[in-house]
């Protein structure tokens, strides 16, 4: 028996991923719910029931793999962003700014009213601004949707994530300064890191397409080259404690806009992307402790409702001006619900910097769990109601 224990340790993660995949496929066939919602649910159950079996020593590696998975998704998001659109249709930028800032303000107000400490309220508010690119990209690709809700969700998510990362880092910076009194540490935790991360992403965004051009096989698929570059970028930012989120997103955007030509990449980075997505959504949910979830549930529900209403109204308000119907505007706002992976990875990365915020944010675990499961379902419904998904009655 004693010999079996180390083996079960080694097998825990591969088996867990297998279970998540099987549950995801069967769940999708039976319920048509997004697979990532099911991975999240299974991850949460697994993480809490089998927490004794999971070897803690591997968490760091898994964290890195999850970051790579997320990096690939962020790159793909950046690669689908057309910055010129914000110029030709300025109301889209206004929508994004208003929706994100209003969410920040109202979530802060509600958290503060509920009695959260000011710093916790600010952090919750900054996280609530963002829409998880992982949640929406997986659902958009799974549904093969196309149309205005799809396009706008992509662009608004990129916009509010950048705003959220900035707000979050600045607030963490202030928090660190308050506790340690070390201005240098505070500064290094915030803006300088962001600038370095974005710079690194931009650099690769120029170098990789240039290299591809030199190779001269532009007509061919560039998926592999970009995937390797994303892995490198995540590893470098991980090692130097920069922001992989901002770096990979910038990489995608710059690679697209600084290109000599465009290269096609496979949606979701093909099979590798699918594999890492299982790991990502599953792993992130295993980090959520049910005690924390239960403890913060009340405020979490209140904040989720506030965020949902603010985002929906914020986007709807400018829908006619920006060229779509009220209905599509409202559906776009709804589709911005997912948050979890983005918020949790941001917190995990902050923890690696020596600032543990999770314990100080009681409602966050419950928010993350609920939205990890429910968020993608809402996005999926919004796309179906907007009639942007293929008609499943066409059997060919």
């Amino acid at each position, binding site marked *: 028996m004693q010999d079996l224990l180390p083996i079960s340790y080694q097998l825990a993660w591969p088996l867990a991923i297998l279970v998540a995949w099987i549950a995801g496929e069967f769940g999708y066939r039976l319920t048509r719910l997004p697979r990532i919602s099911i991975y999240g649910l299974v991850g949460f159950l697994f993480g809490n029931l089998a927490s004794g079996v999971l070897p803690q020593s591997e968490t760091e590696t898994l964290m890195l793999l999850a970051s790579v998975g997320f990096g690939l998704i962020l790159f793909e998001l950046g*690669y*689908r*962003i*057309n910055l*010129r*659109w914000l110029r*030709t*249709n300025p109301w889209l930028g206004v929508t994004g700014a208003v929706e994100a800032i209003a969410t920040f303000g109202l979530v802060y107000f509600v958290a503060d009213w509920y009695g959260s400490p000011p710093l916790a309220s600010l952090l919750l508010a900054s996280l609530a601004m963002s829409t998880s690119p992982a949640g929406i990209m997986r659902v958009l690709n799974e549904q*093969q949707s*196309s*149309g*205005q809700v799809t*396009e706008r969700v*992509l*662009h608004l998510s990129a916009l509010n994530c950048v705003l959220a990362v900035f707000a979050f880092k600045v607030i963490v910076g202030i928090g660190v300064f308050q506790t340690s009194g070390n201005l240098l540490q505070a500064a290094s935790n915030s803006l300088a890191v962001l600038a370095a991360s974005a710079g690194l992403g931009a650099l690769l965004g120029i170098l990789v397409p240039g290299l591809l*051009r030199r190779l*001269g096989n*532009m*007509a061919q698929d560039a998926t592999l080259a970009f995937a390797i570059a994303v892995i490198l970028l995540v590893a470098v930012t991980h090692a130097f404690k920069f922001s992989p989120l901002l770096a990979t997103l910038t990489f995608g955007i710059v690679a697209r806009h600084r290109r*000599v*030509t*465009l*290269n*096609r990449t496979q949606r979701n980075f093909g099979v590798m992307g699918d594999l890492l997505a299982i790991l990502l959504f599953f792993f992130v949910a295993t980090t959520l402790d049910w005690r924390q979830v239960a403890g913060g549930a009340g405020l979490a529900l209140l904040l989720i409702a506030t965020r949902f209403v603010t985002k929906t109204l914020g986007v709807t308000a400018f829908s006619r001006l*920006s*060229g*779509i*119907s009220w209905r*599509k505007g409202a559906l776009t706002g709804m589709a911005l619900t997912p948050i979890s992976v983005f918020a949790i990875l941001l917190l995990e990365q902050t923890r690696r910097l020596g600032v543990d915020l999770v314990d100080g944010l009681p409602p966050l675990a419950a928010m993350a769990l609920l939205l990890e499961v429910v968020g993608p379902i809402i996005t999926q419904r919004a796309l179906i109601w907007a*009639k*942007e998904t*293929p*008609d499943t009655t*066409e059997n*060919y």
Partner: protein
Amino acid sequence: MPLEPFKYSESLTLGVELELQLVSLSDFDLTAASPDMLDLLARKPFPGTVTPEITESMIEIATDVHTGHTQLLGQLRAIRDTLVKAGDMLNVGVCGGGTHPFQKWSERKIFSKPRFKQVSTLYGYLAKQFTVFGQHVHVGCSSGDEALFLLHSLSRFVPHFIALSASSPYVQGRDTLFNSARLNSVFAFPLSGRAPFLLRWEDFERDYFTRMEDTGIVRSMKDFYWDIRPKPEYGTIELRVCDTPLTVDRAAALACYLQALCCYLLERKEAPPAEDDYLVYNYNRFQACRFGLDGTIVHPKTHETLSIREDLLTTLRNMEPYADKLGSEAALEHLYHVTHVGSDAHYLREEYATSGSVEGMLNAAIHRFREDSPLPDGRDAAHLAH
């Protein structure tokens, strides 16, 4: 439903329909944008008509009835500007070209309208494969007999229109070596090809349409996908072989070339059309699709082998007096220019070579659609600045 009577139209009046691509400016793939585009366009009066097409990544526009080149071009440009502006609001690029160079047919969505759904159920993948983009030109005819006479007399000139408009060299990401690969998709339909050789409307109705209707295969003229087909409810014949050109200027020029040809044919100086003219029809059509202006055709009467370019130049010269009469000298001038610099298919291949990717080529096509007539060297100002 019996065939409706052929409505009277004034001879040589013109109308143009263009099927256009809706391309996402994020990744240059076709995007199911027509519901959103139509919704946005409905807010303001449209300078013509705009309708959905079978898949949601296509949109069709049509002009009013015109008599001359200037008004036709004016309206086409106004329509284009309205579309481009709406597209900018929605991150959608509107462009010409007979095929999208790398779309996957399986990803297309059928527009929600009963007729489209029926067609899709009947034809299966052919319906989605039919996400190709053509220009249709209507020419008014004073009677059904005149329509059938023009329809068959024009068959000899069909290769000209294919070669001049050709803009579909790429399909599914690859160069097909065709200049117009689009027509191969049209040919897959069972009721495509040429109209039966009947010269009197009465005969056409009694000996062909009614009998076809009795077989249960067709219910209306819409079920025929012929290269040129009569349209009795408009009182026109409709030329359907052209790829949608990359610019509306070329679309107007092609329409006016057809008008001049009809004007010439109605003088009945040429030998009358005969069934045997069609012996060479499919061969000539293939040559034009495959080689464009560099193809060779066989003259249906003399059986002489001709280069399409030479034959076209001769015909353009012969049409000059008619163009003068109709006020469309600029249109012929535009087409002369095409015979020198090459068709849109040639332009697209050059763009592919320069940019190295089908996306880069599509980007150039989107910019070109926004422009008025291209510069003499065949490249537009936007491209040079790009």
